[in-house]
């Protein structure tokens, strides 16, 4: 099933400046794997050396943070959209 992943501006260097990338998947983990195949190198920005999502990376399915769903095991439906949300830069 095709899922849309929204790519934040600071990661669009990996997606050839595309704001969204479509992948085939029915769960978040596989969707992010498939994203790396589409956008080589992006995985290393999202995961640490131990293969865990980096602490500051926020993944949302629609409006929900996956931390409050089933993490990377969160299942996806046809119309779901994944968003990778960056931290907010810019104050000091």
């Amino acid at each position, binding site marked *: 099933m095709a899922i849309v992943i929204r790519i934040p501006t600071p990661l669009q260097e990996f997606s050839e400046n595309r704001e969204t990338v479509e992948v085939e998947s029915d769960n978040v983990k596989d969707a992010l794997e498939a994203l790396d195949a589409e956008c080589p190198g992006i995985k290393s920005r999202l995961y640490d050396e131990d293969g865990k999502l*980096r602490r500051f990376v926020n993944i949302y399915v629609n409006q929900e943070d996956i931390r409050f769903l089933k993490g990377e095991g969160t299942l996806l439906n046809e119309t779901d959209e994944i968003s990778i949300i960056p931290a907010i830069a*810019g*104050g000091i």
Partner: protein
Amino acid sequence: MSRFEIESSVTPFKDIENSQILKQIGNTPLLKVELFKDEFPDVEVYGKAEWFNPGGSVKDRPALNMVKEGINSGVLCPGKVLLDSTSGNTGIAYAMIGAALNIPISLVIPENASSERIETLKKYGADLIFSSPMEGSDGAQRMARKLYEENPDLFFMPCQYDNSFNPLAHEETTALEILDQTDGKVQHFVASLGTTGTLVGTGRGLKKNKPDVKVHAVMPSEPFHGLEGMKHIPSSIRPGIYDVAVHDNLILSGTESSYDYAEKISIKEGLFVGHSSGAALVGVHEVAKSIKKGVIVTIFPDGGDRYLAP
């Protein structure tokens, strides 16, 4: 009638000089940091505890200075609404100052700002406009600019990224406090980069009074990072106030190592600082490693309690 018309059709501003709360801005404590004592016994490290400002962050200083300048120059007058984009701390400072002086405040803030941040702004009575979470502070900046251009007569937009009164606040207060609190012994100054106001202003003020002070800027190592309030300059809208000539050295800081230092200093020394203070400590460690002896001062922009909520 739009919400802006409702807000702006009101009473005169209160006098800054009569505000008890705004008088508490600045003159923050300079605290000795012991974290690197064993590794570098001949290096003295001090951190300016900016969370002691009444709005809880370093941003009280530039926000007050930009508002003051707006009022003094007549650009910010009763009937106008202060509008700006903010990642949070500047917004809280504006909101507090606005509440204290009766100035209506409208803030463009990325939708992914923490719920605590958003609630705090609301408690001060600020009007919030949300920008895309995907575009971060650059998106908020663009939206604020657009709102301003649509209605320039209604808004006063300090534009913290381009307003020289942002760094000037630090040149005239933070730098002088550091010189005073170290009895002029400061040799190295380390600060993280966001609007760049803290680094540029404090750096200028220190060098003006003590030209041999070395200034070290700390920047996130990657465009995609978790250091809220900090900017990876090459991949962001470049702040107009950023003056590369002020810093002698640029240090890159990873998100994880910054988080680690923030946690470490909280647990080991009871200084519960925010992530950008952790990044500053990464910078301090780099400088300590290279000098082996000397006096380093850094800025702790805010407290860690700002980052508890998702």
